[in-house]
């Protein structure tokens, strides 16, 4: 459960400020009067404005509360610079949603200007912006799911062999293993079972080993990268063994780059387990006689490997 929470957190809490903020921020100069600010707030239906100097640097903030006080105190026609809040809490463009939430928790203000490295105003964030950004992100998750469904239902993507082009009767596979877990500590169970299965079918131990190693890497990739479940299918033929590992997850943006030795996008916790060194595809290539990888972003990855058996017995 904790792991799932971690994943969800990273999905949302790492959202950059620029994705949350409203860039169309309305600001005023310090020499305007509070009455002018009152009109801006009324017309634009907002509850506060940052005050910026001629270089757009944030020098203060005026909220509706300041306006009420000015009306009560009879100084509504005085200048903003004399009554604005000068100590402004700002968010930086490099902050994330996590920082935003913490800032809202720490201070009771309704809005926080967003500034660049030179303290120049680039946007503003209210709780409403946070809510809208989260909803937009959720919509994206939903869209991702819908697209996945589309591809899943397309017969050409998942039902045809990448290597031979023949349509694939997966129900006729000699070995099937669902990768239905997300725990990296379990990665390799399928490959291990496949090796046992091949040995029980009288496959040469060296061939079984090659198949198991390549499958292990493919299975680990599903667990680490796909963010979804997957499956291992194996067909044992007299002259060759054919393995297909597929998932319906995030997909690979650039398959060519992913196949490069040493290229890795694995997170640290995966590296701590001894994986994620960018050797996966290299190992698969080395162990198999034929390797095909096809992926669409948002639609999963299909890895197919062929292992010839003609070298069996004459080591």
């Amino acid at each position: 459960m904790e792991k799932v929470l971690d994943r969800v957190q990273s999905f949302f809490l790492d959202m950059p400020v620029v994705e949350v903020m409203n860039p169309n921020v309305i600001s005023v100069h310090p020499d305007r009067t509070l009455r002018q600010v009152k009109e801006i707030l009324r017309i634009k239906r907002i509850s506060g404005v940052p005050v910026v100097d001629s270089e757009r640097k944030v020098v203060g903030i005026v909220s509706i509360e300041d306006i009420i006080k000015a009306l009560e105190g009879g100084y509504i026609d005085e200048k903003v610079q004399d009554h604005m809040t000068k100590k402004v809490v700002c968010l930086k463009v490099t902050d994330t949603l996590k920082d935003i939430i913490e800032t809202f928790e720490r201070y009771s203000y309704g809005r926080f200007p967003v500034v660049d490295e030179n303290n120049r105003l680039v946007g503003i964030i209210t709780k409403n912006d946070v809510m809208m950004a989260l909803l937009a992100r959720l919509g994206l998750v939903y869209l991702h799911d819908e697209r996945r469904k589309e591809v899943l239902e397309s017969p050409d993507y998942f039902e045809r062999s990448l290597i031979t082009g023949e349509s694939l009767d997966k129900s006729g596979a000699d070995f099937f293993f669902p990768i239905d877990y997300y725990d990296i500590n379990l990665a390799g169970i399928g490959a291990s079972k496949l090796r046992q299965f091949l040995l029980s079918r009288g496959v040469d131990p060296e061939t079984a080993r090659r198949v198991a190693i390549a499958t292990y890497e493919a299975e680990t990739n599903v667990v680490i990268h796909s963010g979804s479940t997957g499956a291992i299918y194996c067909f044992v033929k007299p002259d060759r063994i054919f393995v297909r590992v597929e998932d319906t997850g995030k997909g690979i943006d650039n398959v060519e780059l992913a196949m490069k030795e040493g290229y890795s996008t694995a997170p640290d916790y995966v590296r701590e387990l001894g994986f994620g060194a960018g050797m996966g595809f290299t190992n698969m290539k080395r162990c198999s006689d034929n390797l095909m990888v096809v992926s669409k972003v948002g639609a999963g990855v299909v890895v197919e490997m062929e292992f010839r058996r003609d070298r069996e017995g004459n080591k």
Partner: protein
Amino acid sequence: MKLTEILSELRAKVVANAQKVDQLEFERAAASDLMSEVLAIAKPDAILITGLCTPQVIRTADVVGIPAVVIVRRENVPAETIEMAESSGIVLAVTRMSMFEACGRLYAKGIRPIWEV
């Protein structure tokens, strides 16, 4: 070299499949903390020396066909790793010795690398 000799040289304590120790002998060793590397280069007749102690180590050894694993620089091994070693029939031992010293001692005793250049 007999596994019993290897383990005494490394001052290692056997934590799984102790009954198999007498039956095994090794000429070669692989030492790595990178499981993908083990998958890439290891041979079935080698002993694996590693600093990792997750169940993944055992699964990797199982897939490659490595019959014995020594975990270095530790007192204890997580129970799930031991359980997995037991069920996969892999001898698992642990030593407080560092990877460097463990490898150096075995090399001096004539154990060869799995990959000689």
